[in-house]
């Protein structure tokens, strides 16, 4: 008699794995916010800083723009991993602990791929989609809680909660990719990890029957579309080169 049986596993549905109720989930986020306040101000400022550097990498050429982008982004993943997953989410979902290594790995990956960020002036549709995602993660996502009738204290903020952090990262990856000649391995892997989280979040929110479940799903879809578009650089876009790009990936300097 086997303990593990495929025919038994096939009878399971997502709701069989959801171990908390919707009010408890939102309450957990509110409690987490109280625990980390006022770190939100710093993480939001860090996110805005990333946005500014991405918009004008040449203006930050003296300060290694790749690191200025990758540093705060990697730190946000670490904070969301150890802080949100480890300290708060794990209190209602033991499986959250299993995902901490993924968040740490993503942080390290982003740091390793730092030279792929801020390489040139973003251009093309991928960049537009990327800026849209990043702006949504920073300014739009925190509004979902009050829009859904939950207190502002339960808002999900970039760098503190995983969903806006991941959606913001998708934006950053699209922007970075728009100014590179080809899709690099660290960025592709970072995109894949972000998409995996969007999937996890979408299934969780959808199983709880919350209308916000569209948010990670649409963000992942937008990112995949942007990622698969032909590269603006290789198809005649004219991004400016910065000093931080690797020779192989940098667009030709004008």
């Amino acid at each position, binding site marked *: 008699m086997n303990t593990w049986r495929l025919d038994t596993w096939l009878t399971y549905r997502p709701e069989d794995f959801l171990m*908390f109720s919707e009010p408890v989930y939102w309450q957990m986020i509110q*409690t987490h916010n109280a625990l980390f306040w006022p770190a939100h101000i710093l993480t939001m400022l860090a996110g805005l800083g990333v946005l500014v550097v991405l918009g004008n990498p040449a203006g930050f050429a003296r300060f290694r723009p790749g690191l200025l982008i990758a540093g705060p982004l990697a730190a946000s993943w670490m904070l969301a991993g150890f802080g949100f997953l480890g300290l708060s989410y794990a*209190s209602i*979902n033991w499986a959250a602990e299993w995902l901490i290594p993924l968040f740490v790995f993503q942080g390290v990956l982003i740091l390793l791929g730092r030279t792929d960020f801020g390489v040139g002036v973003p251009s093309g549709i991928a960049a537009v989609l990327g800026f849209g995602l990043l702006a949504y993660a920073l300014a739009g996502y925190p509004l979902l809680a009050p829009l859904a009738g939950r207190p502002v204290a339960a808002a999900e903020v970039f760098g503190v909660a995983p969903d806006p952090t991941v959606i913001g990262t998708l934006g950053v990856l699209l922007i970075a990719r728009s100014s590179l000649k080809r899709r690099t391995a660290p960025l592709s892997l970072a995109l894949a990890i972000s998409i995996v989280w969007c999937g996890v979040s979408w299934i969780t929110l959808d199983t709880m029957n919350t209308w916000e479940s569209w948010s990670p799903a649409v963000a992942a879809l937008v990112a995949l579309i942007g990622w698969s578009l032909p590269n603006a650089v290789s198809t005649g876009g004219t991004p400016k080169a910065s000093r931080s790009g690797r020779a192989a990936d940098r667009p030709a300097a004008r």
Partner: protein
Amino acid sequence: MTKHRSKPVSRRTLLAGSAGAALTALLPKAGWTDQTTTPSLRTIPSSGARIPAVGLGSWITFNVGDSPVLRAQCAEVMDAFFKAGGKMIDSSPMYGSAQSVIGDGLRALGRTDTVFSADKVWISDTDDGPDQIADSRALWQVPKFDLLQVHNLVGWEGHLRTLFEMKQSGHLSCVGLTTSHGRRHQDLAEIMAREPIDFVQLTYNVRDRAAADRLLPLAQDRGIAVIVNRPFRRGGLTQPLEGQPLPDWAGEVGADTWAQLLLKFILAHPAVTTAIPATTKPHHAVENLAASTGPVLDADLSRRLISQVESLT
């Protein structure tokens, strides 16, 4: 896996906490405090001990994390449950923070001796079973478990050995196994036929009746007590029935609500020892316990209930 150790909540904290106080203020309005009917008792065949025919589940409802407000609300449910004569609470290391919520509630309410503690072992490496059981016991804050069940038959052979040893050495009263959603009935039947277990836990309700084919008669034959989980299909039965008129015969069997009728259906099976609905509401805990009193459904009423519920859900 998270070992959920939160700061213990004292009774004073619970009752002084804003939600605790608010909820306490609401309780008399809900009317459950007036209900004094003692629940009917059923016998555990292997020991002869008697327990109330309705217990309390904790999947999802008691997994509320660290929020003191929500933990206080769970304690209010437990308080109402015990005051109405309830005893068995069922949990598992799989249920997130539920074990520590129960443990803190029991201690704050002074009910560590009243409770019939039914927990589970749920870990695939059976060598780790004793450690998991020790962690669970620390979270429940009880001197020993009344019942430990192998959750969903995971590693059942190794875990049963551990549990039988614990029972023999006096560190455990009863041994059991669980399944749900109609899964692995064949495997469970084989184990029931040959292992000296005290309890099985399975799903049986108005819509999920497969257990009545083989497992319930087998339990009766073998003298195994039966705990029924998912009596309301995790709300999938109670929600659509909300607001629907009760059958005109409901009063004859002493049922005031659909939930009570659904429980009466389960308890009508002679093999069933106890049903363990989960709830977030103190008045539901009381209402559920009250369903064990009064007449049980006869075969004809059971059939009529099945067809009515099938047409409405």
